[in-house]
């Protein structure tokens, strides 16, 4: 199939908005993506034709809701080459990581065990492990990041003594693509390797078997899906061993006054009524992405980033890998003499949406010695004209500030 941006954009009516009298230029998909009509229609259609609680009733609608819900789980599983019983629904990536911390971490980690993260992690892949380390008196180590925003490979040996290693696949702050495939085999036996794929599953083909990870998390709202749905992938044998995270309905097979028995995974980890509409929406988003092709999406974004790098104005300092094969569709930068928040406000007056600040990666910004940065992030619906608009806005800000 031909990759046709103009055709794709027609599926996203929000992109036709005018902001401050200018056409919206949405360059903040790393924060959350926009949603195509197909996804909105699927959610609406679910509520119009199948809404009911899942796994509970035996009446028509309840069976219908359960069927579409479990079909969605299959779609999501096959998208990352997993089995449906290895897919646990959570609220978002953050909740998936917390599930791992509370369930796997609290039951397995002992005093003196080592947890390895990297210095570029998102706060949601730092804070839960920090808490685990504090509660269990475990040791927390970080794989350092160098000036170019690349992990120091000679520190990968830290993993050899780790009980848990949790690393992001693509940095939301720098766009760096980490060598997950190279790292996974370094995890010792009886330890687990967790991948935060929040920024990679939406943008490139992902195969959990090829990556070689034990767990992988991602979040639906960054991949054209609704907010409120996240995914935890876990190897079946690990999910089977792990204790439940939340207790209540849905996650039990038997409840007596003084004891209960748990369901098998994934239901064991899905207490309470799930956001069925969001699950349906995510499955539709995956159908949409698949029909365009993840390879095509990845190359389109790479093209936009290369173009942005080539055309960046003077005095724009760009962070992250120079080698474009190590970089995804994320571009973080600062304009000398302009605070990133001010730049963002000026660009906003031109209709351009970027992110400014530390992008939930304060330790990374501290390491790089930056108070913050501006970030433009691209998705399948962005165009070269929008990159031009970004740099034109930056030129305008430079003139205003006299830099």
């Amino acid at each position, binding site marked *: 199939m031909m990759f046709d941006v103009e055709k794709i954009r027609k599926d996203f009516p929000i992109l036709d908005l005018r902001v401050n009298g200018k056409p919206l230029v949405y360059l903040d998909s790393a924060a959350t993506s926009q949603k195509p009509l197909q996804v909105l229609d699927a959610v609406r259609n679910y509520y119009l034709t199948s809404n009911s609680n899942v796994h509970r009733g035996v009446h028509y609608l309840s069976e219908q809701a359960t069927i579409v819900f479990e079909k969605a789980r299959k779609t999501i599983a096959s998208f990352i080459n997993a089995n449906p019983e290895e897919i646990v629904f959570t609220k978002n990536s953050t909740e998936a990581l917390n599930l791992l911390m509370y369930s796997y971490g609290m039951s397995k980690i002992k005093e003196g065990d080592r947890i390895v993260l990297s210095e570029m992690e998102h706060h949601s892949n730092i804070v839960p492990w920090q808490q685990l380390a504090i509660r269990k008196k475990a040791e927390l180590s970080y794989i350092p990041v160098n000036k170019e925003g690349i992990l120091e490979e000679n520190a990968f040996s830290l993993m050899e003594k780790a009980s848990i290693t949790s690393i992001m696949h693509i940095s939301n702050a720098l766009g760096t693509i980490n060598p997950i495939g190279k790292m996974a085999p370094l995890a010792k036996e009886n330890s687990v390797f967790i991948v935060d794929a929040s920024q990679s599953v939406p943008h490139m083909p992902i195969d959990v078997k090829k990556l070689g990870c034990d767990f992988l998390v991602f979040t639906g709202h960054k991949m054209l899906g609704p907010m409120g749905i996240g995914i935890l992938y876990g190897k079946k044998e690990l999910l089977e061993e792990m204790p439940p995270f939340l207790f209540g309905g849905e996650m039990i097979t038997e409840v007596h006054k003084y004891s209960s028995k748990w369901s098998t995974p994934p239901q064991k980890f899905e207490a309470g009524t799930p956001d069925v509409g969001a699950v349906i929406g995510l499955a539709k988003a995956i159908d949409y992405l698949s029909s365009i092709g993840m390879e095509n999406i990845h190359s389109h974004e790479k093209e936009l980033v290369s173009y942005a790098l080539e055309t960046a104005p003077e005095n724009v300092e760009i962070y992250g890998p120079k080698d474009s094969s190590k970089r995804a569709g994320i571009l973080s930068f600062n304009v000398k003499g302009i*605070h990133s928040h001010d730049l963002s*406000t000026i660009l906003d007056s031109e209709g351009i949406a970027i992110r400014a*600040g530390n992008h939930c990666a304060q330790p990374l910004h501290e390491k790089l010695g930056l108070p913050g940065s501006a970030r433009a992030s691209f998705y399948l619906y962005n165009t070269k004209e929008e990159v031009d608009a970004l740099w034109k806005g930056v030129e305008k800000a430079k003139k205003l500030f006299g830099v």
Partner: protein
Amino acid sequence: MDFEPLIELSKKKRKMQDSTHSFKGSNSSCGDEVTIFLRVKNDRIEDASFDGRGCIISMASAALLTEHIKGKTLEEVKKLTKEAHLELLGFDLSRNPSRLKCALLSFIILKENL
């Protein structure tokens, strides 16, 4: 938002050599830092200035606040409300609620320390 007057204001940074008080604070989420310097005599603020680094809004609001409190008594300054401080700025942040914390940084530092 009209940036030009703010850019001028934000350049008025001045460290005070003979201050009697200096209060420092920051917004950890964005890294903005402000120090407010006061020279107080007989409970009256003879001179006030600021220094720091950060966005135009946090710097300009520190400039306006320190200008405003010059010559006032400490009692008068303690009575200054958040609303009055924001009014000094004279621009509308209602459409930019995320920038409110920038505008309030110097005010909060002053209030917490007086």
